[in-house]
């Protein structure tokens, strides 16, 4: 299998759980998987079942130069080297890199190095799974640049749909990338179709509202470990087959 997919959408719709589950299922299928947490409130590690802090790449990897702005301190360092050296291995062999920029604690060097990976890491055969920040800024600034598929995750609520409508404008700036909707926390049979129609993009898949997943999260457990047969987990397994591009 091989996938390059970025998950975007309003906070709380399930981006981290979906991206973590997709990453681990790709790993189980034998893929080398790089999970990228670009959220300024990093939560992907927890959803993957890892207990690591929000530290990003070392600040010293990049430096500020007159006229050039922020550049990699050593231009010969490749994205592949950064991944090999700094990505943390988690369950199902998923490697995790975190942007690690906490709000109010801007780390331009770490941010630059993370962007170096997002833009340049294309190692053959690897799958990339990105969990983007809840707002629209990052998405519009190229944090989804590695993706072949962008999945707009939205739940059946007016706010979530409005956020997804804003994010759908990304498609104009990313030709060649497939945009589709994942309807999350759906309760009624026609929820997925209604959410996709309101956003104006095709439906990729849907994940049901699932109390057992929320219970697992409430107890600090990953749903994939605690309730692997839950309906939401089975639905996410279905999504994996849809973003797989060999």
């Amino acid at each position: 299998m091989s996938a390059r997919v970025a998950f975007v959408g309003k906070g709380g719709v399930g981006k981290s759980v979906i991206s973590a589950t997709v990453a681990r299922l790709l790993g189980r299928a034998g893929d080398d998987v790089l999970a990228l947490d670009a959220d300024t409130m990093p939560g992907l590690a927890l959803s993957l079942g890892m207990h690591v802090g929000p530290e990003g790449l070392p600040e010293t990897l990049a430096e500020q130069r007159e006229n050039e702005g922020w550049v990699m301190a050593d231009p010969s360092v490749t994205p592949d080297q950064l991944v090999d050296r700094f990505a943390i291995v988690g369950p199902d062999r998923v490697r995790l890199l975190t942007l690690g920029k906490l709000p109010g604690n801007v780390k331009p060097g770490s941010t630059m190095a993370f962007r170096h990976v997002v833009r340049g890491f294309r190692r053959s055969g690897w799958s990339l799974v990105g969990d983007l920040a809840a707002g629209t800024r990052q998405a519009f600034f190229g944090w989804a640049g590695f993706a072949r598929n962008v999945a707009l995750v939205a739940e059946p609520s007016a706010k979530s749909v409005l956020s997804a409508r804003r994010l759908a404008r990304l498609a104009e700036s990313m030709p060649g990338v497939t945009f589709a909707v994942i309807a999350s926390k759906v309760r009624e049979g026609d929820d997925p179709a209604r959410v996709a129609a309101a956003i104006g993009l095709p439906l990729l898949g849907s994940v049901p509202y699932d109390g057992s997943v929320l219970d697992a999260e409430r107890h600090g457990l990953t749903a994939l470990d605690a309730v692997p047969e839950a309906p939401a987990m089975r639905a996410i397994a279905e999504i994996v087959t849809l973003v797989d591009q060999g």
Partner: protein
Amino acid sequence: MKVAITGKGGSGKTTVAAILARTLARGGADVVALDCDSNPNLGISLGIGPERTLELAAIRQSLDDEEGGAEHAETADELIERFGDDAPDGVRLAVVTKIEKPNPG
């Protein structure tokens, strides 16, 4: 009284802020609701609907695109008057987030 509401996405910030604003306004207070989210949805929770909520953000963007920009910056009161919208119970809503042409991260 000045209240800022913050927290993780999906935890209910916008809903709490909107109900707080409208409840205060119903009690007779003059209320300005400021949407500082990079994904500004407060208009929906206040009850002005998605189209007017989207429009507000677009108006905010137009300020950045204006010739001269900061050179003829107005006072906060003038900006809220010019770029805000009236929500139910007399709450005045303004979006103070820039959405496009953002800084990294």
